[in-house]
């Protein structure tokens, strides 16, 4: 099975061939490295940029104005925070020009903790990003969704922020990418750059086909009846693990992978919460002015009378960073045990 980095790479290769992608660029995105997580190895249109995030976002904007289809990478979302004004400009271009210009561009960036990244390679970006109007925001948690969401992003005529859960980039899924060879060694041979000299290397892309995960559509990862858990990114997997444990205790968790953070699938949340009457919103961004609080607010406003328990947020702690020592990281970011605990509490508190 392809890992998520390979899946993204294949989606971009598909995009270059079929969807008019003109530039995949950013710091160390082009040869020889092909991205610090290898997500852009071997791409025909990939190139290395200067070390300048503001220049990268500006360039993407300009390419889109001139009819190109750029995919810009910010190496870690920890380094995107000097571009918030530009992201706002991008999100504003269509609205501010009364519909005269739209900017069909994709920005992708790895987010979240989980690779012992310490203070400056562990940031989340969901809260600030969802606060910037005019963007679509997606975050996959499996390679197949990464493939399908990237293709959807490339087809979209709006700016799309594609968040890559850093900790999952090297993990495999259990569904094959359409066109992916059966043997993962074969895939590796075809599309992974060799160690050592790469100057003459060229990838051989499988016969990739179109596969779109529609933007705005959540996925019910696990059906359940006692409590709903709404999350995305790597916490989907942890929530699943927690739900499995809770199943043994007779607690049935309905797990929603939001996949698109904006515009999000509120119907899916509503339907589920109407059924379970209890809900936990889960993510790893810090706790104050957190995107999960938006979902919680809307749920509370619209479904107040249908809730049997206080809706809850489980998020990262509101401290300035994620520490390097594992005990610090684990204390900062929701762990499986924390998820279990909050789901259990929420499922069992008397109505």
């Amino acid at each position, binding site marked *: 099975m392809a890992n998520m980095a390979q899946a993204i790479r294949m989606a971009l290769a598909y995009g270059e061939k079929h969807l008019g992608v003109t*530039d995949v660029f950013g710091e160390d995105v082009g040869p020889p490295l092909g991205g610090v997580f290898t997500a852009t190895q071997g791409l025909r249109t990939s190139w290395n940029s200067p070390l300048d995030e*503001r220049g990268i976002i500006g360039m993407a904007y300009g390419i889109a104005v001139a009819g190109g289809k750029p995919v810009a990478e910010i190496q870690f979302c920890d380094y995107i925070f000097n571009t918030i004004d530009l992201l706002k400009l991008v999100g504003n271009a269509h609205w*501010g020009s009364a519909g005269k210009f739209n900017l069909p561009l994709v920005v992708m960036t790895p987010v979240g903790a989980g690779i012992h990244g310490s203070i400056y390679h562990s940031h989340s970006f969901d809260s600030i990003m969802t606060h910037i109007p005019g963007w679509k925001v997606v975050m996959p948690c499996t390679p197949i969704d990464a493939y399908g969401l990237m293709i959807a992003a490339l087809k979209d005529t709006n700016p799309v922020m594609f968040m890559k859960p850093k900790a999952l980039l090297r993990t495999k899924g259990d569904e094959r990418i359409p066109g992916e060879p059966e043997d993962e060694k074969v895939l590796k041979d075809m599309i992974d750059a060799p160690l050592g000299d790469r100057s003459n290397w060229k990838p051989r892309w499988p016969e990739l086909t179109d596969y779109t995960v529609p933007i705005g559509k959540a996925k019910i990862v696990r059906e359940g009846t006692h409590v709903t858990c709404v999350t995305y990114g790597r916490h989907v997997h942890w929530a699943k693990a927690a739900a499995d444990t809770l199943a043994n205790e007779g607690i049935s968790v309905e797990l929603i992978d939001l996949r698109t953070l904006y515009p999000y699938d509120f119907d899916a949340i509503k339907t589920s919460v109407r059924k379970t009457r209890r809900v936990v919103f889960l993510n790893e961004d810090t706790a104050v002015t957190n995107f999960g609080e938006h979902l919680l607010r809307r749920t509370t406003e619209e479904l107040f009378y249908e809730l049997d328990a206080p809706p809850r947020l489980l998020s990262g702690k509101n401290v300035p960073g994620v520490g390097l020592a594992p005990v610090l990281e684990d204390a900062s970011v929701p762990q499986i045990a924390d998820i279990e605990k909050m789901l259990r509490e929420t499922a069992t508190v008397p109505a």
Partner: protein
Amino acid sequence: MQKSTLRPRLEPALQVRIHDLMVKTRCVEERMIKMNRDGEGFFWIGAPGEEAFGVPLGLQVKKGQGPDFDYLHLHYRSSPLIMAMGGTMLDSLRQMGMRATDRYSAGRNFTNHYAIPEWNVAPMAPTIETQYLIAPGTAWVQRRHGGDGITIVNGGDAGTAEGDFASCLIWSTRPGKEIPMLIIVVNNKFGISTSHGTQHGVRNIADRGIPHGMQTKVINGNDVFESWAAIDEAMRYVRTERRPFLLEAHVSRLNGHSSSSGANRVDELDCILEFEKQLLADKIRTEAEIKATWERWRDEANACVKQLRTEPFPEASDIWKWTFHNDADNTLAKAGGD
């Protein structure tokens, strides 16, 4: 004075045209200032004092849509350029008047903030200097596309303190990946109340291009002839060499920074008066012709204001338009945001 050598290059008919456009620009700006004073518009910012540079620039733009034509990434003092390209007084005044008919922003943006896809004029924002980051993107596409279309970016002197100006120098001179871009700095010696010399240690702003191996030039942007020639030279270079050129033009700021500082006329050299002296001396225009030009454009401006007064303001529900490129998405967004 270089004038004597430069003047012969400009055909009398062209000089007349330039003068006409300079006056047109001045008149539309002055009408906006009056609208502001009359309470018909909340904020004015514009270009009185930049006509001698902006009109020759606008007339030399290769106008059209797509990478075969010039892309423009402008600041809020670009009315001379836009008027010279064929922008109408009515369109500018509509934006000042916040009308629904404002074709640049439908009543959303400040005046002199354009967005004209047919002429490759990228959407403008008042965030100082960000256009210098966006411009390399269109120039990059043009580099790949070939042809002689170029990208033009302009902005003020104070704004060059933002790192974005330096980014532009970096991105336009990547070895083997140079881009066809005319980088302009319009130096009026002030950023709002702060004089250039108190904040910038450079002798010329344009000199900052030199370490990057860039062609540079500093000109008197109050002089039509010098402006025309320098723009011509710079554009030829960029169009053919497909490399950047950094041009600094010194100009006046005739009405201060904006309506926030009163928009009163200040005592600086007026490029239109200077040009008119030349036109008279060279017998290209008579006093009467000049007077008629002013009258015509003043009347036209007044007529436009009359016209726009009959036009509707936007409606409250309009705020939901154009967040996304398709209406279904806007509906979805509205549900989440309302």
